[in-house]
């Protein structure tokens, strides 16, 4: 098993390099190099030609933009690994690493919360509907899950935003806390306040996850319920509840664990969409603004960060599954 985990980590490492290369390509793709983009930005801001040219040259030297591409890439990676420097954002006047460090905790909290809620609710619903196959409850939930995954998430966010702002007249929608809690220390009231602000994201990102988890759990559980040992358990005279919850469910859960790796990207994408619409200060709006402004180091670095998050999620799911289910083949 250790061998298997080790191999997974090695594969993940190579994937990481691949993701790094693609992110770097995204940074390099816009016409002109970063220094000339920066010069254009300064000129647009009313800087003199002289100042702008000097800044351009400074940046070019600092980031070694005149060196060959491969060397630049190695320099970029080295900066990230050794100093946590992702590159300079001209719109914020800071290193991208600082911006990411500011915003990543809340992004992760939201994504993981949404993930956890959607898993628990989705699996629960799956267990509820599977024994009622083709019954009213099953059909109703199937249709609900279809509809939930069919509504564009950003438009759901708009509708919720509309209700919050226009109908309920709720202030401070685009932040995590109400003004009185912003500088307060962590307390129960602050956590409650936070939930009052992030529930639209949790709801919208989570809903699709609920639907997916439910479908997967229902399918698995139905497969397991058809197997012979379940029949044996029933013929022993066990209550149907016991058969399902104690005998069938544990064996249907493995696939859910393996599936978690693919749900995480979905959660992050949901968080991205909703946070952009609501303007919550997470990675999503930062990424979007950077794309619009051409602040390429932010967009490239965030692409890398998203890739790493998903990679780590997949790796954890794999490792957890191998610990949980010894039957898994390590070849």
């Amino acid at each position, binding site marked *: 098993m250790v061998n298997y985990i080790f191999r997974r980590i090695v594969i993940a490492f190579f994937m990481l390099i691949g993701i790094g290369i693609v992110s770097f390509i995204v940074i390099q793709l816009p016409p002109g190099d970063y220094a000339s983009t920066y010069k254009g930005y300064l000129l647009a801001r009313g800087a003199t030609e002289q100042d702008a040219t000097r800044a351009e040259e400074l940046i070019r030297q600092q980031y070694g933009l005149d060196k060959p591409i491969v060397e630049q890439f190695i320099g970029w990676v080295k900066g990230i690994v050794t100093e946590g420097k992702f590159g300079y954002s001209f719109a914020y006047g800071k290193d991208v690493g600082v911006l990411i460090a500011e915003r990543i905790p809340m992004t992760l909290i939201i994504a993981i919360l949404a993930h956890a809620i959607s898993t628990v609710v989705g699996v629960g619903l799956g267990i509820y509907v599977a024994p009622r196959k083709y019954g009213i409850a099953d059909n109703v939930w199937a249709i609900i899950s279809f509809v939930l995954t069919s509504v564009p998430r950003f438009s759901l966010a708009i509708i919720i935003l509309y209700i919050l702002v226009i109908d309920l007249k709720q202030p401070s929608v685009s932040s995590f806390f109400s003004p009185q809690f912003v500088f307060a220390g962590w307390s129960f009231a602050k956590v409650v306040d936070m939930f009052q602000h992030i529930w639209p994201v949790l709801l919208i990102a989570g809903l699709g996850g609920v639907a997916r988890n439910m479908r997967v759990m229902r399918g698995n559980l139905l497969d397991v319920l058809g197997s012979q040992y379940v029949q044996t358990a029933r013929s022993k005279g066990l209550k149907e509840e016991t058969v399902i919850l104690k005998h069938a469910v544990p064996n249907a859960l493995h696939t859910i664990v393996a599936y978690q790796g693919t749900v995480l990207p979905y959660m992050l994408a949901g968080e991205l969409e909703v946070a952009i619409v609501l303007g919550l200060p997470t990675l999503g709006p930062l990424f979007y603004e950077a794309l619009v402004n051409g602040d390429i180091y932010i967009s490239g670095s965030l692409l890398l960060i998203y890739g790493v998050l*998903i990679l780590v999620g997949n790796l954890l799911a794999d490792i957890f599954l191998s610990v949980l289910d010894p039957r898994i083949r390590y070849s």
Partner: protein
Amino acid sequence: MSAEKSEIIASGSSLQQEMDIPLGVAQPDIAVLREVTPQFENESYSQLVWRRFRRSKVSIVGGFMVLTLVFLAIFADFFSPTTLYGVDLKASFIPPQQVHFFTDANGQFHIGPYVYNMVYTLNPTTFQVMWVEDTKKAYDIHFFVLGSEYKVLGIIPMNLHFFGVAEGGAVHILGTDKFGRDLWGKASEAGRISLTMSLFGTIISILIGSVLGVASGYYGGWIDNVLQRFTEFVTAFPSLPLFMALAALIPKTADSFTVFVLMACIFAILSWTTLAREVRGKVLSLRESDFIMAAKEMGASDSRIIFRHLYPNVLSHIIVILTLTVPAIILTESFLSFLGIGITEPLISWGLMMRNTQDIQTLGQNSWILAPIAFMVIAVLGFNFLGDGLRDAADPYAVK
């Protein structure tokens, strides 16, 4: 042989004709005859699929939803009561007009539905701008009326519209947007880009996915290994952020057609992985089957085996994936266009129509501009339903 067969079929059909005539005594005999007569003609694959597909009510509904949107998109000019291309800033943000029936404000009776024109007034107390119904004159909604000129499919000139009102009136059943354009007509038209782009992207992704999947499964060995690792890598990539990053790279000055093609390609490069996997699995199991072995023994070339024997057998999976990839692209495209990094004017898509809703103030006063959401939901839901039904139907030989 064929003559014999056709004769039998002919006699079968004559039996059927006789069945229709109520003969009383003869009927039981025919029924027995029909039972003992073996069916000579096997149902073809497509017949089997259709039979299964028809059984699933949900997929019929889905197919109907998709067809409706396609129809609306193709004949958007016909379904829109006004021209799609005019801009009328005086008619900006008119709320959806209420359709009335029977007796109007002047006590006149109407057989069909009618509307009142909307007039622009100031609220006497708050001085807010508002549109109210002008009940002085009612306009009957007529069907199949002559109106503004347009060209069907860009070729055939026509001026027939599905519905409309007499000269001097206007009908906007979903209201108008910022530029005074009819939302119903525009949303119908927007389906053209939203649907064709997703279909185009899907077709490209299917070309990539099926070629890589078949190659991977058929050749095996190191080709399979490399392709599998590559597929895994692409799957692991965060798709939405990458779509956004690539779409934002399309220069603002590019012409509409280039933007359209580039966007479709961007969606295609990350969407092919599911298909490649499914096709590979299917090909792996088919590779060892007797009929492929037989073809190989007979000296068929690789390309013949792949295109004549393998492709037809994985086609059903490809069609299923097609119906499931299209809605995924519709959702992503609408989000990107909504953000302003996707489709841009003069092209129009559902997401782009939603762009005005980003301004909460505009949205607060004109909530009807959310109407394109309904079109998107119908499209995505329709394709999902369709795909779900097709998945069961595509493999009619499977024993349930």
